[in-house]
C-alpha cells in the first residue's frame, strides 16, 4: 500500500476530508518552497501537490502560469525538484505528489524519472496532458517503482470514459471541478456535487476535487461529496501577493489552517448507493 492510499484510509477512519494544497516548486525559490511545504503540513495539509514548472502550461490559468514563470526564471528543473523532495523527506511524513506536464518528464526519461522520483521520496505523479491512452509507457515505470499515477476525470467525461479511466486508477482520482483551466473562481458549477457523487459511486479509489476551489466556502461545498479538496491557484495568489514579504510563509499557513478548519467542520460523504447510468444528469 502506498503512502497516498494510506493517507486516505486514515482520513476515512477519522471521518475527515483531506486537504491537498498545490504549490509550484521553485516559486519564488526552492528554499521558500521547502519552508512552505513544512508549514502547510503543520497547518493540516494531508498530501502535498508539488508543481513541476513547465514553459507551456496549457491547462493553467494566469495565476499558475505566472507561478511557473517565476520558478523557471531561475531554472527550476526536475532534478531540482527531486533534490527538494529528498530534503523534505528527511522530516516530512505526508505524501508528496508531483503535478506537471509530460514533456519535462519525457525528456528526463520515463524510467529514470520513476527511479529518481521514488528514490527521492515522491509518492505519486500526475501529468495534466497524459490521458490513460498515452500513459502506458510511463505507467509501466511508475508501477514498477510503486509510484501512484493519478488520472483525472472532468465534467466532460462520459460514463464510459470514466469507467475506462477508473480501471487504471491508483491512489485517488482527480476530478476537475470546472470545465476550464486552473484559477480562482467566484462560484463552483451547480452540478458539481451530483457529478462527484456519481463518480464516487463507481470509483475503486478515493476522489479528490480540484480546479477552482478558491475559498473555505468552496472547500466546504466539495467536502460534502469528495474525499479530498485540492487547492492551487488560491494559494499561489497568496504567494504572489506576498512576494518579497517576510510573512509569506505564515500567510500561506494561515490559509491552509482556514481551509483545514472548514473541511473538518463537514462530515465525510457517504456512499449514495445509486446505480450510475450516466455521469451527466
Amino acid at each position, binding site marked *: 500500500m502506498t503512502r497516498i492510499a494510506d493517507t486516505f484510509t486514515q482520513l476515512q477512519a477519522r471521518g475527515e476530508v483531506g486537504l491537498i494544497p498545490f504549490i509550484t516548486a521553485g516559486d519564488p525559490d526552492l528554499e521558500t518552497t521547502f519552508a512552505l511545504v513544512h508549514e502547510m503540513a503543520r497547518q493540516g495539509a494531508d498530501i502535498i501537490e508539488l508543481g513541476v514548472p513547465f514553459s507551456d502550461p*496549457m491547462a493553467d490559468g494566469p495565476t499558475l502560469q505566472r507561478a511557473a514563470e517565476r520558478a523557471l526564471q531561475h531554472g527550476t528543473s526536475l532534478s531540482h525538484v527531486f533534490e527538494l523532495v529528498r530534503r523534505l523527506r528527511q522530516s516530512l511524513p505526508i505524501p508528496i505528489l508531483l503535478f506537471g506536464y509530460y514533456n519535462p518528464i519525457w*525528456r*528526463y526519461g520515463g524510467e529514470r524519472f520513476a527511479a529518481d522520483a521514488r528514490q527521492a521520496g515522491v509518492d505519486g505523479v500526475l501529468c495534466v496532458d497524459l490521458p490513460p491512452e498515452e500513459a502506458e509507457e510511463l505507467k509501466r515505470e511508475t508501477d514498477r517503482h510503486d509510484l501512484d499515477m493519478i*488520472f483525472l476525470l*472532468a465534467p466532460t*467525461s462520459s460514463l464510459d470514459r470514466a469507467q475506462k479511466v477508473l480501471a487504471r486508477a491508483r491512489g485517488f482520482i482527480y476530478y476537475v471541478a470546472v*470545465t476550464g*483551466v486552473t484559477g480562482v473562481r467566484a462560484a463552483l458549477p451547480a452540478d458539481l456535487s451530483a457529478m462527484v457523487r456519481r463518480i464516487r459511486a463507481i470509483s475503486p479509489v478515493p476522489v479528490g476535487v480540484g480546479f477552482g476551489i478558491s475559498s473555505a466556502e468552496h472547500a466546504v461545498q466539495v467536502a460534502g461529496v469528495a474525499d479530498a479538496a485540492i487547492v492551487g491557484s488560491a494559494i499561489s495568489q497568496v504567494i504572489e501577493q506576498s512576494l518579497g514579504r517576510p510573512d509569506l510563509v505564515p500567510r500561506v499557513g494561515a490559509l491552509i489552517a482556514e481551509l483545514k478548519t472548514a473541511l473538518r467542520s463537514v462530515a465525510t460523504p457517504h456512499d449514495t448507493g445509486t446505480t450510475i447510468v450516466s455521469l451527466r444528469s
Partner: protein
Amino acid sequence: MSKLPDKYGHFGLYGGRYVAETLMPALLELEEVYSQCRRDSTFKRELRALQREYIGRPTPLTFAARLTERLGGAKVYLKREDLCHTGAHKINNTIGQALLAKRMGKERLIAETGAGQHGVATATVAALLGFSCEVFMGREDTVRQAPNVFRMRLLGATLREVVSGSQTLKDAMNEALRDWITHVAHTFYVIGTVAGPHPYPMLVRDFQSVIGRETKKQIVQYEGRLPDYLIACVGGGSNAMGLFAPFLPETAVHMVAVEAGGLGAGRNAASMANGYAGVLHGSKTYVLQDETGQISATHSLAPGLDYPGVGPELSYWNDQQRIRCVTVQDAQAVEGMRLLAETEGIIPALESAHAVAHAATLVPQLPATAIVVINVSGRGDKDLQSVANFLGENAL
C-alpha cells in the same frame, strides 16, 4: 489516403493525444464525426463545391520559365497556393474543419494564428458559414502582421491578443487550448496545421492533400510523368504534408521539407533539424527544447514558421528518411522572395520563400531533365512591411 496514423493517432513513435482530460471527449467525438464525414458523399460534395467555387481550386501549376532559365538546372514548376482565396493554403483546411464544426452543431470557432493567415482563413470561413469566431494571436505577431489583424476584424472576428510567454504562435496556441478547455461544449477549435492532438494531424493533412492530388494530375498532364523533387516549407507542416501525402507511395519522388533557419544557431525554428522528440500541444513530435524539457524560444522572419514544433507525421517520415529536411535562414528567404518576384512576377509569402531559396541551391545541381515542384504556399502581401524593415528600406 495513407494508412497512417493508427487508431490511436500514432505515426510510429509520434502523434497521439496528449491533452487535458477535459478535452478527450471532444477529440474522440471529432474523430468519430470525421470518420463518418470522410465516407459521406454529401460532405465530400459540399467540400468539393466550396473548393471550386469559393477557394478557387484547382490552383494552377505554373511552369517557371524564367526561374528555370536563371537557375540553369532542372525544370521548375510552382504550385500556386498563393492564388487561394485569402492568399494561402490555410483555407483548404479551415473550410474542411468548419464543415465538420457545422456537422457537430458548434456555434463558435476559435483558432490560433502566427502569420495571421490561418486566423484570416478561419475568420473567413466563420463569416461564410455563420459562426462566431475568436482568434488568438501573440502580441508580437499582431505587430508584425498588422494588416491581417485588420482583415480578421473586418471579417467580424474578435482578436484575442496573447501577452503570455514569448507572445508568438506557440503562446497563441496555448491560449487557444485554454479557451477550448473552457468552452469545449459549443466551441470548435480550428487548428491551423498538421499538429495538435489526434485527429487533427490526420484531418488537416487530408484536407490539405488536395494540393498534392492536383499537382500530381497537373504535372502528369504537362510532363507525362511525376516530378523528381517536391519542395515545401515547414512551419507545422500542413502545406508540406498536403503536397507530399499523395506522393508518398511514389518512391522515386524526393521530398524536401525546408525549415526556418532564422538567424542561425540558437535563433531559429528548425524543429526537425535542431529539436528532440517531445510533447507539445497535444502530440509527440520533434520539438525545440532545452535539456530539461522546457520549450525554446524560436525565431524566424516568417511568422508562419516561427513555431518550436512540427506535425508528428513529418517527424515520422523524417526518421524514415522518406523526406529530407533542410534549413534556410532569414536572409536567404528574403533573397528567395526577390528571386521569384523578379523572375516570375510572383511575390511569395516569406514562408514559401524558404522553399524557393532552397530550390535556388538545389536546382542548379540537377540535370535539365529533372523536374522540381515548389509549393508556393502563400502570397507575400502580408510580409511587405517586415521585408522592408529587414532590408532597411523605409520606402514602404
